[in-house]
């Protein structure tokens, strides 16, 4: 199995982004996804910058994919998407069907991200005919469904699983980070910069429940599949995706690297838990609520 680094979901300072990818270049991950997938107002890193970062990563031997914006609203966002899909250097991860349309009609191969709804074989086969080369399993689907999908997977299509990260749960026209500061989206003052792992939303009983990341809502707990790595290998999963968090991502990649090479999962799992911003969950894998943590496979 290969390891990938998913697109950064958060809004980080430009230098933080550059530093992050400098470290990524020497990591064990084979694939790196680049680009802004949440909010078109986040422009500290431009498309030209992403292309330059991509070329450097490519020289370090990484496969580089450019990820597209997830929720398209303004005409300017569609124009930016068209530009992204015309780039001649890298394959594109489509996070919306509009990108699939642009790429497939241009005869270009593509990857689909976790927000493209591929829930059954007929959808997978249809997209394979359009140029799909790799797809990310939607995060709410479990191992049983993955097994069924793998059984009839079209030839030449790789399967990627969201292996670690706060779950991307929802997208809105409204910016919740701005709202939490009583600001409108059009005058958000880039408050997202203050929350490099998202802003915590708690219940009135202080249960840390969700995380606000601009127009995106994430899980407060970090979904992680370390204990299921052997099973995912058996199911023929090709790629495990590590979604960047602000701290410890390089070490997390090392942990998954050790896991795929057959190291003892128990100490790795313990260390991994200590590196997460809050705690872990994996309920989706076993057809439970996504926030649950099934530890029956841990030891």
């Amino acid at each position: 199995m290969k390891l990938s680094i998913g697109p950064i979901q958060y809004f980080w300072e430009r230098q933080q982004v550059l530093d992050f990818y400098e470290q990524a270049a020497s990591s064990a991950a084979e694939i790196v996804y680049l680009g802004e997938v949440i909010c078109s107002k986040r422009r500290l890193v431009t498309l030209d910058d992403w292309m330059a970062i991509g070329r450097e990563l490519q020289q370090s031997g990484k496969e580089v994919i450019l990820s597209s914006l997830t929720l398209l609203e303004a005409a300017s966002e569609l124009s930016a998407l068209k530009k992204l899909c015309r780039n001649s250097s890298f394959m594109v991860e489509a996070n919306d069907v509009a990108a699939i349309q642009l790429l497939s009609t241009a005869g270009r191969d593509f990857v689909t991200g976790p927000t493209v709804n591929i829930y059954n074989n007929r959808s997978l086969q249809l997209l394979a005919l359009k140029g799909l080369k790799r797809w990310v399993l939607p995060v709410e689907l479990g191992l049983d469904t993955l097994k069924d999908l793998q059984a009839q997977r079209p030839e030449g299509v790789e399967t990627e699983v969201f292996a670690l990260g706060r779950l991307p749960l929802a997208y809105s026209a409204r910016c919740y980070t701005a709202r939490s500061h009583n600001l409108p989206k059009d005058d958000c003052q880039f408050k997202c910069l203050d929350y490099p792992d998202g802003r915590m939303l708690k219940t009135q009983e202080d249960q840390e429940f969700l995380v606000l990341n601009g127009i995106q809502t994430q899980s407060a707990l970090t979904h992680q599949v370390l204990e299921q790595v052997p099973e995912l290998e058996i199911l023929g999963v090709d790629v495990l995706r590590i979604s960047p968090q602000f701290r410890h991502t390089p070490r997390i990649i090392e942990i998954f690297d050790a896991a795929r090479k057959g190291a003892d999962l128990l100490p790795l799992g313990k260390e991994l838990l200590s590196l997460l911003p809050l705690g872990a969950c994996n309920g989706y894998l076993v057809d439970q609520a996504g926030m649950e943590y099934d530890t029956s496979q841990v030891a």
Partner: protein
Amino acid sequence: MELVCPAGNLPSLKAAVDNGADAVYVGFKDETNARHFAGLNFTERTFEKAVCYAQDRGRKIFVAINTFPQPRGFDRWQSAVDQAAAYGVDALILADMGVLDYASERWPDLRLHLSVQASVTSSEGIAFYHQNFGIRRVVLPRVLSVNQVAQVITDSPVPVEVFGFGSLCVMVEGRCLLSSYATGRSPNTYGACSPASHVRWEEMEDGTNTRLNGVLIDHYGESEKAGYPTLCKGRFQVGEHTFYALEEPTSLNTLSILPKLREIGVSAIKVEGRQRSPAYVARVTAVMRAAIDHCLLDPQGYRPKDQWMQQLASVSEGSQTTLGAYHRPWQ
């Protein structure tokens, strides 16, 4: 502008038709549609009556088969498509690419609409479904401003339907997993958001707690009326504040912008609420019918009547309404 109204059972369907709906949309009694609630929706017998009642009166009937089947259930979605087609419905409202592929291949003459659950917000997205499955209408998610809707209509290869009234999804439809994160069941997989099976109401000394699979969605003081714990409409803490962090309990109401929706070329106005009562359907349909007729007759002179607004507010969540994303400051 066609008026498309919801019906979760036969009395609601009759209420919609009798009060002036041009089309009524329904679903079957299982997870093939996004209002999979206990006691709701149509069996084969009631479905046959529904089709007859609507079509005998010159109205259209649409069937929503707009959830996302997984491999083990795919045949149930196929059967739903076949059943609806066999009864000669006017259109299917579909979301999943696999189901669209099946329906367009098996029933090439049947009219297909792209459900809001397909989550398509741009002309390029619409073009994908038009070119591959021949969809003849798209229902837009409730995330676009009026100007953005206008842009989509200008570039869209097919007519556009938008939501005009009803409960408001604040997340882009078809890509919201909040409900399954808390309960294991989502609109995509199960056809319900914040399902009743996981709801608990707790009477406390100081009021009422509403929970979803144990998670406290809201706490109501004794003087407050407790609402249904829809996950995105609870009060949560962010920083120092406890507030409706995502959205208030409120309903979408577009009466004030109907002339604008007409001007930009909206083809159909959809009313949300298959889970609501026949009385709701009757009232909302009657108000929307009167408003649309006024608007078409005299777009310049059109003003929403106070009486209409009051009637709609009385059946709204939290008795309040909003323009939602249509109105930029809401965002």
